[in-house]
């Protein structure tokens, strides 16, 4: 009967195609344009206060944007490395010239910008979780906004040990200095190269050394920012595909590498990433708050510009 009715409607030119409804329910309760939820004890961010840095002691978040040129398979692209460190700062001494800081630095995460065609190197969280923390000397030449801040050299060695900062990296998996840092039964550290959809394309085992020096100025009681001088050495030990065994040279690009140091527990305003209310934060809390920090524009990221590398 329905067919006869449809036929009659069709013959009469009365039947039209109208959009239907699927049977699947919406799973997201909030409308796409809903207002962000009110702060209910979760991480809090604001643009930071102004004024002198009276006391630097406490936990800070160090965000580093390191711009490199990657020579891979015949082309040069800018590859930006975004690293997030948790820094425990203690003021060791103070005189008329400077404030000496003792900074306990722990890498919480690292992201790399996509290359052409959406390929992107992923640093699995297992790597920063397995790295040892470092002590880094820092110096403040005053507490007022505009006063200088600088540090000694931070040397971060991945996938090997007992190598001096200027010594050549081991290139063989048989070198006794090479170690399985993250315990994945592969020498060195393992990076995964993923495609645009986040699906693994290949993986690579490397030994990598990053040397960083920070020079900046005091911006406020909870903020220091400035430039980064960096040098990254990398040796590929093994790769699942030729696509992953890119050259080891990572010269700086013409874009400016920079850092922002933000107080992470809100004693003087600014960020408050103490999600569990323990009075201290750890890398887990930093990673949980990462999305919010991105959305809030706390650490605005630069866009890779391949032209700076050519």
């Amino acid at each position: 009967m329905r067919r006869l009715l449809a036929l009659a409607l069709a013959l009469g030119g009365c039947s039209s195609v109208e959009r239907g409804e699927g049977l699947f329910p919406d799973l997201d309760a909030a409308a796409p344009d809903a207002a962000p939820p009110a702060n209910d004890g979760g991480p809090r961010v604001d643009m930071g206060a102004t004024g002198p840095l009276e006391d630097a002691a406490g936990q800070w978040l160090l965000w580093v944007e390191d711009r490199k040129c990657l020579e891979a398979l015949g082309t040069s692209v800018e590859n930006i490395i975004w690293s997030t460190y948790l820094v425990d700062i203690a003021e060791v001494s103070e005189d008329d010239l400077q404030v000496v800081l003792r900074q306990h630095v722990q890498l919480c995460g690292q992201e790399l910008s996509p290359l052409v065609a959406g390929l992107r190197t992923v640093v699995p969280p297992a790597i920063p979780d397995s790295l040892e923390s470092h002590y880094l000397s820092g110096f403040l030449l005053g507490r007022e906004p505009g006063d200088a801040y600088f540090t000694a050299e931070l040397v971060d060695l991945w996938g090997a040990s007992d190598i001096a900062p200027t010594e050549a990296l081991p290139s063989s998996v048989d070198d006794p200095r090479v170690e399985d840092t993250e315990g994945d039964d592969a020498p060195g550290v393992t990076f995964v190269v993923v495609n645009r959809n986040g699906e693994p394309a290949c993986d690579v085992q490397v030994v990598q050394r990053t040397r960083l020096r920070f020079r900046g100025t005091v911006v406020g009681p909870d903020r220091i920012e400035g430039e980064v001088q960096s040098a990254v050495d990398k040796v590929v030990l093994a790769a699942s595909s030729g696509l992953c065994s890119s050259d080891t040279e990572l010269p700086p690009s013409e874009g400016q590498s920079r850092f922002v140091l933000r107080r992470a527990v809100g004693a003087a305003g600014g960020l408050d990433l103490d999600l569990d209310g323990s009075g201290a934060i750890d890398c887990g809390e930093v990673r949980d708050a990462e999305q919010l920090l991105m959305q809030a524009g706390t650490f605005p990221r630069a866009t890779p510009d391949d032209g700076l590398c050519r």
Partner: protein
Amino acid sequence: MRSILFAAALGASLPVGAHANPFDLFGAGARAQAMGGAVAALSSDYMATFHNPAGLPFGRNEIGLGIVGSFNRTSILLSPRPSGYDPPAYGQRLNPRVDREDPDGVLGATVGLTLKLFDDDVAIGAAFFVPFDGFARMRTAFPDEQEQYFTNRLRFELVGDRAAGEVIALGLGYRLLPWFSMGMGLMVVPAARTINNVYTPNSTDPSTSLINVDIEQSARAALTAGLRVDPYDWLRIGAAFQDELFVGLEGYNQVQLRGDEDAEPIIQPLNVVRQYSPPRLSGSVALVAPNGLTGTVEGTWQGWSNYLDARAELAGFEDTYDWKLGVEYPVNPRTYFRGGVGWSPSPVPPQTGRTNYVDNDRVVLGLGAGRDFEVWGEELTVDLAIQLHALLVEETRKTVRADGDYPDCAEGVTELCDEVPDLAEDTPLQRAADTQGLQTGNPGFPGYTHGGYIMAASIDVKWRF
């Protein structure tokens, strides 16, 4: 990366192929179109090469030229996507998921001839259709969630492109007795084989790929055969068979990557099928009154269960029986009015699972006229026809599983499938919570409504000598 290279290579390697042909959809010739395609017991001009080659000896020597065109007012309207089912990076697809409305029609020319050989009882015929908008063209699409990376749209599987491909019909008819003839012939469509050698000097920039193309064009043919029995002046019986036929593109891309020389070249096989016409068997009976009024009925079995989709995979269609009724009335010795109606059920089962083969039951209406003129002592015939295909509106809804447990997308899975397998625990790349439940970018999810109409018109001019 490899899929990117595949696309680059394929894009450079597809100048060959075809849509389908309009004879299958509308019938061959204005007379057949006007009568709803019910002419297997009547056709005796060069279009008998398609409808029933046994009819060729019943005609005269002739050459003809025709124009056939159609406009398409069909729509596929997608149901709104519910929230919470997006796979990763769904918003970054090359094309957004959109409806398909009013796709292109077709315009092309038919050319044909019939020649009597040796005596009046042996005739050969040939009919061609050539579209005006490009020769040997092929479009492929995935019927499932994989199409989200390409057009991200749905399309009519059987009535969209089917009217736009070139075709050649050849036939030979032999009248053994004054009331009995038999015939056979070939339906010919293009085919091609391609081997593309691709070298990519920069794997991070596929636009720099170097491509050598090796294409070999050929043809694919299907056997046609028929019988024609005219036991009385008032009775004509016809039976016709056509084997399956499709346009094929075979071959492969061989891809080498700089920096990956130690590995074997990547082989990307190509096996593409379009313009699939199923095997069909038609039986037709026509009654002719003393005043020339002719009525005919025709039934056609079509073996759609053999249907191969664009990826040369069996689509799971069902065989169908089409029915057609036609009438021809001579209002005077030189002028004819014609009409016809047909019913063509869809061979496509309900698309509640993974695939989105879109097709509708169709009602076919035809109307037309013909007139014979005398020009320079010879007979010239002009036939006109219009034909309406009403696609009965249908709504497709993907099935909701009560247990919420959708299978992972893999080869052989026919149900609506999960593109992101559920993880039991976090991995370095994914959080387990982000993978739970159904994630699909299937353009047909959660459903769609489809229907509309196609209007075709044609004119044939035949000179008989």
